[in-house]
């Protein structure tokens, strides 16, 4: 009996829902979507890396050349600022088999430290900004 009632209800709902049909969007729905697609296509910019592969190659070449020059060339270094910190540079001198003598003015040291601090600060601020922009909530 109960099963029969369910069947009648099922048939009734099917009949009414089919007859009612679906809702219709606006007449120009398809053309609006297509024009939006076209405008999105034209505004999409192709991905371009910030540092091109050519620049990377040049940077690697410069770094390698500097490294080779330091290790095998006739450069003399004195780590005066390392000595100021009380660090022993004899190991570096022994490894390079010649006196290590890099002279870095104090003002350059301060500039490097301040730049490093700014870079650190920027990384923290950028992370906070991107988290706010891309993460939900």
């Amino acid at each position, binding site marked *: 009996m109960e099963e029969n*009632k*369910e069947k*009648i*209800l*099922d048939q*009734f*709902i*099917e*009949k*009414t*829902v*089919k*007859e*009612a*049909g*679906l*809702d*219709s*969007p*606006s007449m120009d*729905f*398809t053309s*609006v*979507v*297509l024009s*939006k*697609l*076209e405008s*999105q296509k034209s505004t999409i910019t192709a991905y371009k890396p910030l540092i091109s592969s050519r620049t990377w190659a040049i940077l690697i070449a410069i770094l390698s050349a500097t490294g080779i020059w330091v290790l095998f060339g006739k450069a003399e270094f004195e780590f005066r600022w390392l000595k100021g910190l009380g660090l022993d540079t004899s190991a570096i001198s022994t490894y390079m088999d010649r006196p290590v003598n890099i002279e870095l003015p104090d003002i350059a040291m301060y500039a490097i430290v301040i730049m490093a601090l700014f870079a650190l600060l920027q990384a923290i601020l950028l992370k906070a900004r991107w988290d706010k922009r891309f993460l939900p909530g």
Partner: protein
Amino acid sequence: MSQNLDQHYIERALNGDTRAYAVLIDRYKHMVYTMAAQIVKNNEDAEEVAQDVFLKAFKALNSYKGDAKFSTWLYKIAYYRSLDYLKKKQRRISTTTIDVSREYSISALDSEMDDMEVQERQQMVKKAIQQLPEDDGVLITLHYYEELSLKEISEIMGNSPNALKVRLHRARKKLADLLKSTVEPEILNSYGGK
């Protein structure tokens, strides 16, 4: 058959043919719009959501692998996009709770509705479906209009087929109650007008 036809247009759309995509839009826009309208309960918002669904589907078209029917894949986007829209708007949808305390016969309701004009009847049913909670409206339409099985609907809505069966059982009862409560005043009004 429809799936093969869809595949043809999908491949053309993937090659950048937007006219082929227009065929797919025309084929599914009514269902996508109806689903959106049943969830967001507002025609203007539903239009916006439905457009957004087709834009998103186009962008994600290369991720459609053809495991499920294209329509199932698209309806899933429509369902979740509509829910996201609701969440974003933080709008609470008020749905009607109807209390039909006395028993009534479905056959009697059916014959009462048969006496109405077709257009009037269609409007009344659409309005009643709109008054159902959002998931119930979508479930009823997918099952009875789109003739999808509970397994296919479960791929769209994410519930198990068994949970959907229970839900469908309640939803069709609610819809019948809503129709009954609408039909009676209509009939009284028509008598009053004579």
